[in-house]
């Protein structure tokens, strides 16, 4: 079909402008417009250049995101889902996030250097696991108040990683959300297991 998105949007606008009784467009046209938006997005796919984080910090961010939500046999992980790109984009626009996440990553590097003599990415897998296990739980701040800032940082990064993963195509399909589409008649609830 040779109809373009521009044609559809133009016809929609005309319908709206021409004083028709109802500003209604046919279901088919609406659905086609949505699909074309999707196709355009896919065509524009390209390698992401970080807007806020330095190359080093972005590498760290990617590593942490993938550790928070890794790939497993059921679904790919946070990197494939685009979580680091999403976090970098919103951080580039939000001064609070810049301090919280930018500073948080530096806190993690500083702490790793103090503890293990290496920045986070240069630590062994066991060392990385050890420090993350400390900052992943609020209760650890009670036994070691010096972890407080790390715990705050990791808590935020976990939420933003979950945002990035579960709003991706991969994450939505992993959760099993089905919908966002045209359903002529809502079928109701399948039997609820007791």
């Amino acid at each position: 079909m040779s109809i373009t998105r521009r044609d559809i949007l133009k016809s929609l606008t005309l319908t709206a402008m021409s004083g028709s009784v109802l500003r209604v467009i046919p279901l088919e046209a609406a659905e086609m417009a949505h699909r074309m938006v999707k196709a355009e997005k896919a065509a524009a796919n390209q390698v992401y250049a970080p807007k806020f984080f330095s190359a080093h910090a972005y590498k760290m961010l990617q590593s942490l995101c993938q550790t928070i939500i890794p790939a497993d046999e059921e679904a790919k992980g946070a990197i494939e889902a685009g979580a680091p790109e999403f976090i970098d984009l919103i951080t580039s626009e939000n001064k609070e996030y810049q301090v919280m996440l930018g500073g948080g990553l530096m806190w993690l590097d500083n702490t790793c250097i103090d503890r293990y003599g290496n920045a986070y990415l240069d630590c062994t897998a066991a060392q990385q696991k050890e420090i993350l296990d400390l900052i992943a739980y609020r209760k650890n701040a009670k036994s070691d108040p010096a972890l407080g800032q790390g715990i705050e940082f990791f808590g935020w990064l976990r939420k933003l990683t979950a945002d990035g993963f579960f709003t991706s195509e991969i994450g939505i399909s992993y959760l099993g959300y089905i919908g966002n589409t045209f359903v002529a008649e809502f079928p109701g609830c399948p039997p609820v297991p007791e």
Partner: protein
Amino acid sequence: MQVQRTPKRYDVCIIGSGASGGTAAKVLTEGGLNVALLEAGPPIVPARDYKEHVWPYELPHRGAGVGAGARQGAGDEFMAPNGAWEIEGEPYVAAPGSRFRWFRSRIVGGRTNHWGRIALRMAPVDFKVRTHDGMGDDWPVSYDDVAPYYDKVESFIGVFGTKENIPSAPDGIFLPPPRPRCTETIIKKACDRLSILCVPSRLAILTKPLNGRPACHNCAQCGRGCITASNFSSSQVMIPPAEKTGRLTMITGAMARELVVGKDGKVAAVSYIDKATRTEQRIHARAFVVAGSACESARLLLNSKSTLFPDGLANSSGVVGRNLMDTVGSDGGGYFPQLEKMPAHNHDGVGGMHMYLPWWKFDRKNDFLRGYHTEFGGGRGMPGVSDFDDLCDDYEGYGVGLKREAKKKYGTYIGFAGRGEMIPNENCYCEIDPAAVDQWGIPVLRFHWKWSDNEIKMAKDMQETYRQIVEAAGGVYLTKTSPDGPHPYGIADGGVIIHEVGTVRMGEHAATSALNGYCQAHDVKNLFVTDGACFVTNADKNPTLTIMALTWRASEYLLDEAKKGNLGA
């Protein structure tokens, strides 16, 4: 600044294009009058402004907006441009010691672009509260006066529901309801066990084609704007038939500043700021319908001072701005383990609840006067930014365990929202702030607010009820509230439920009210205030359907008066 005068004189000038202004525009133009309709915002263009069926991953910010603003309370990217808590350059003030939020929609269709489409009739007793329990005041109209107009509105806009014969929730003219979702079947079962009423909800969404609009296609996204106009909004349903008459002149970007009174004591013109040119303009008309939303309409009257009306227009009683009410709101929610076992399925349905809990304790004495209804929903919705915050806080940790926990818990929550009647009190009102103006030079509102004990007891009852229901359904109630602090039992701040009404109330007596039962000012016969400002009480029913019914009734009265020549030449 140069004041320009438009020589043309309209039959009627309507201020505001929302539920009330849109209804007035339809009825008055179809009745043969030439109408100018002023709207402070821009036109809405569905093809440009609506984001239906977009996935979060199709947007760079995943729907969270620039800087993830949605996490800080800004609207998400999916929503149609339908309103905001703060508008740049148009402030409002809360008096010291008061907390009040004011949601405003500066766009054609006003807040009908935003509302939940919950379309509930007020019950006969809701119009006669003083007779019933001695508090507040009776309306000058009865249910029987308004019922024919509820019929007209429902028949025209389309409301689904079922006949239930519940005294607190009168039946209307209904389209068939959608089938219940899983979350709704679970709550219905628990409510049956507890003898709490749970019935199909009543929403202004088409489940069958009506008046040229197709039926809802069940994408659950009314808030994003409905490109098929299957849900109701003034912009898509009321304005188009008014335009079709050829008698409607729509003026957008027009911020009404003052109603100008002639020597005869009638309103001669409205003075407004044309936002695009920042110039003052005037519209002359034989009659004026003020429908800018309850507080905006009170503001316009209070800002319209003259030698004839030194305390503001139509305010010889002093009630303008007084009796400000919102709805009592308290929310709760729970986790339902049985939902973990549900197979993946489409749970979307219409954009809102398929079932609700009408007020059911009308037949007994309670700890508080009046009642509340309950809205509820949850389950397997489209995942969005910040949906997993609680899960992250509860689970902590990271890795495959976190990922699996999120999948296991997805769709297992159901939330409840109590919506109850507030009794007006002398501590809740709005007035003109003595110092501040907005960017158009118009003095702004200052709000005063204090809940009384009756509302707090009602919020307590909501919390106790939702715990009971969740536990009866085999769930775990997760909401924690305290009897003290700024939000006892989770009661929302004034204005937050976006049901402000009462600021230009109607009544039998000119000494204690501003309007008669037809929304016509006692003091100024060619002035009508038809939005929620005219309410005497704020029943637990969301006000929009009643606003439209009262406006339809007032508009027919106005047509009749015009025919009789009572509006003047």
